């Protein structure tokens, strides 16, 4: 369970990205986060895996306050969360295979299992044949799919996807959405920031709409849109 209590975030340069955000997301939920460019979607998401900590308010992940975690404990928090970053954040010097395997290596998974699992996930996103390439040799959409594969490879309890279909054609997008539906059906929470009206409107789920750092709408089975 994820709880944000009156969370505000002001970045060092004085920009206020979140402003009194109160949100609760239960285990197993599927949530879209929508809003205009710069609304605070990415900042909202970053609170959960502690890339940023709130300037005010608190974030609880499964009852634990994230800001109070010791440095040593942060990796364990992150291992339970699969994040698809808006800018992918792939390791540029490592191959596609190694990028995905990395998420399993850090939890010291057995090497044989790693191999099996990585290849299966790469197959799922349609990139098994490019396992040996490095990110610079991939198209934008292919890189995005590597990021997706890395996020889901260790079967995390929570998947956070920041604009995961921005570089994908509609068909591939639907395949990816199907994957998210599947892992959600198996009990994984999915939080997805998106600008895709089509996806939000066709796959009706809970929609959190943000604007100027505030949650302006929070509807179950909602539609794309944020202007109140």
């Amino acid at each position, binding site marked *: 369970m994820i709880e944000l209590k009156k969370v505000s975030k002001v970045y060092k340069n004085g920009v206020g990205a979140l402003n009194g955000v109160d949100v609760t997301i239960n285990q197993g939920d599927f949530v879209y986060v929508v809003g205009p460019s710069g609304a605070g979607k990415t900042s909202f998401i970053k609170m959960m895996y502690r890339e940023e900590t709130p300037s005010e308010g608190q974030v609880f992940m499964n009852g634990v306050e994230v800001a109070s975690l010791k440095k040593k404990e942060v990796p364990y928090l992150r291992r339970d969360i699969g*994040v698809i970053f808006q800018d992918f954040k792939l390791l540029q010097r490592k191959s596609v295979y190694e990028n995905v395997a990395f998420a399993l290596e850090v939890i010291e998974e057995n090497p044989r299992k790693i191999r099996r699992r990585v290849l299966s996930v790469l197959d799922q996103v349609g990139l098994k044949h490019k396992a040996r390439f490095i990110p610079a040799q991939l198209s934008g959409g292919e890189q995005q799919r590597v990021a997706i594969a890395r996020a889901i490879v260790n079967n995390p309890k929570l998947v956070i996807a920041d604009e995961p279909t921005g570089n994908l054609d509609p068909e591939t997008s639907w395949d990816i959405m199907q994957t998210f539906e599947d892992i959600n059906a198996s009990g994984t929470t999915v939080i997805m920031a998106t600008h895709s009206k089509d996806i939000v409107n066709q796959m009706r789920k809970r929609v959190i709409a943000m604007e100027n750092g505030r949650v302006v709408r929070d509807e179950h089975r909602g539609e794309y849109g944020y202007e109140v």
Partner: protein
Amino acid sequence: MKFSTARRHIREGSKNIIRNSWMTVASVGAVTTTLILVGIFLTLILNLNQVAENIEEDVEMTVYAELTAGEEELNELEQNLSELQNIRSLDFSSKEEELEKLVEDMGDTGEQWGSVFEDSNPLNDAFYIKANQATQYKSLSEQIQGMDYVDEVSYSQTTVENLLSFNQYARYIGIGFISALLLTAIFLISNTIKMTIIARQEEIGIMKLVGAKNSFIRWPFFVEGALMGVLGSIIPIGIVIGGYYYLYENFNDKINMAFVELLPFNPFALQISLILLGIGVFIGIWGSVMSVRKFLNV
């Protein structure tokens, strides 16, 4: 750490060496350059040290017994001398032996004098003493002068003292130089490694975001640092050993000054290789440790 994880770290570290070929060349280059300097200086200083020791070892002190001292008194004196501390050797040379030596030293004219003095030998019986360390002659001579039946104690005081202070200075300067050079080397190399890591700052950040513990990130860098140290010490070892071999083979015989003799090639080459290798590995690992730490707290 699991065995498979350890293997992974070693594999990663080695791969990084190859992948960042450019950086590796730069870092290894820095290690190489500085180790060459260190190697040459070390060779120089160890040899100079040896020379200094040779010289010090050759210093000796002569104790002249009183002309009137008979066999008994001489025995007593010898007894007393042999009870002194810090003495490495004690040799007796009777006045007859002294005369023989003198005659020999004087050459042709000596022979004439030899026959003149054969019956009324004007020389003293003498004891030759070597101290454990050259610094001890002064206090030894003071002690001995207080003994019975001692006519005169002679060791070229100023020579020994000059020599000692010269050696001392040479050593200080040598040690100072080597230390400065090593510090420079460590600084430069950790500098270099730091930069390879700055260049990978982003990479480290991503790893942390994906849930890697600091130690997990650190290990491959250690391996990489150690490997770079090893790679960086190969050429210096080659140069120093090769150069020393050449010198040793070609010049050791020709240097005809007393005391000056190169350290024997055989153990020396191995020793210096191990020292350079050790320094290289140490610097490599240390540089990595220092610099990774800087960026793990990001």
